[in-house]
């Protein structure tokens, strides 16, 4: 998994490339925690995210909760397979998917 971050002022766009699973999720969690210090607007770009398991959902839930207090978080470019996971688990309603 690769994480690409582009920050402009208080807005950070995070591109997640590859798989968000038990092994890779902690890395994204660490990166997002850094961004909570500075970003008021967090945008996650999932155009190259191929796979997400509950470990990844955990990280997203933590991030959404944190950003709900600080500012906003949106998720964009979700593919069909990942969207299906979001639908089954109710995460479609928790995340702001654009």
């Amino acid at each position, binding site marked *: 998994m690769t994480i690409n971050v582009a920050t402009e002022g208080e807005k950070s766009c995070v591109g997640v490339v590859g798989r968000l699973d038990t092994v890779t999720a902690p890395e994204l969690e660490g990166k997002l925690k850094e961004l909570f210090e500075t970003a008021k607007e967090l945008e996650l770009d999932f155009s190259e995210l191929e796979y997400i398991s509950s470990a990844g959902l955990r990280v997203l839930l933590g991030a959404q*909760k944190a950003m709900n207090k600080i500012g906003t978080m949106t998720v964009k470019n979700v593919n069909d397979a990942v969207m299906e996971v979001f639908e089954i688990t109710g995460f479609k309603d928790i995340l702001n998917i654009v």
Partner: protein
Amino acid sequence: MIFQAIDSELDNVLAWVEKTLEEAMASPKVVMPFLVAVEEIFVNVAHYAYRGKEGSVEIEFLVDDKAKITFIDEGIPFDPLAKPDPDVTASADERQIGGLGIYMVKKSMDGVEYHRVGDKNIFSFWKNL
């Protein structure tokens, strides 16, 4: 195949399952949910079955008109199907984390089955191809 029940084996487990599914020409609509389900169960065994001690899990994987996988471990008795479902309508603040993995397995697979036989947990799930 037998694997050490540890997170660092996850990639090997998923690679083996994915390769077998692709050789069987399973559609992508089947492959990703199946791999997620494999991860959820494997990681549950790795994290909980042996209470922090070393242990292994035997995985049987058969693909014919369906892809069926069976996990056999000798850990503490654990029936994943006995867990109550998480509340998937709860808001972010109210959401509990627990139970999500097995819930995803139950919702995306065509069948799930658990038996405790002797000192073994035997958990299977399958998806029609």
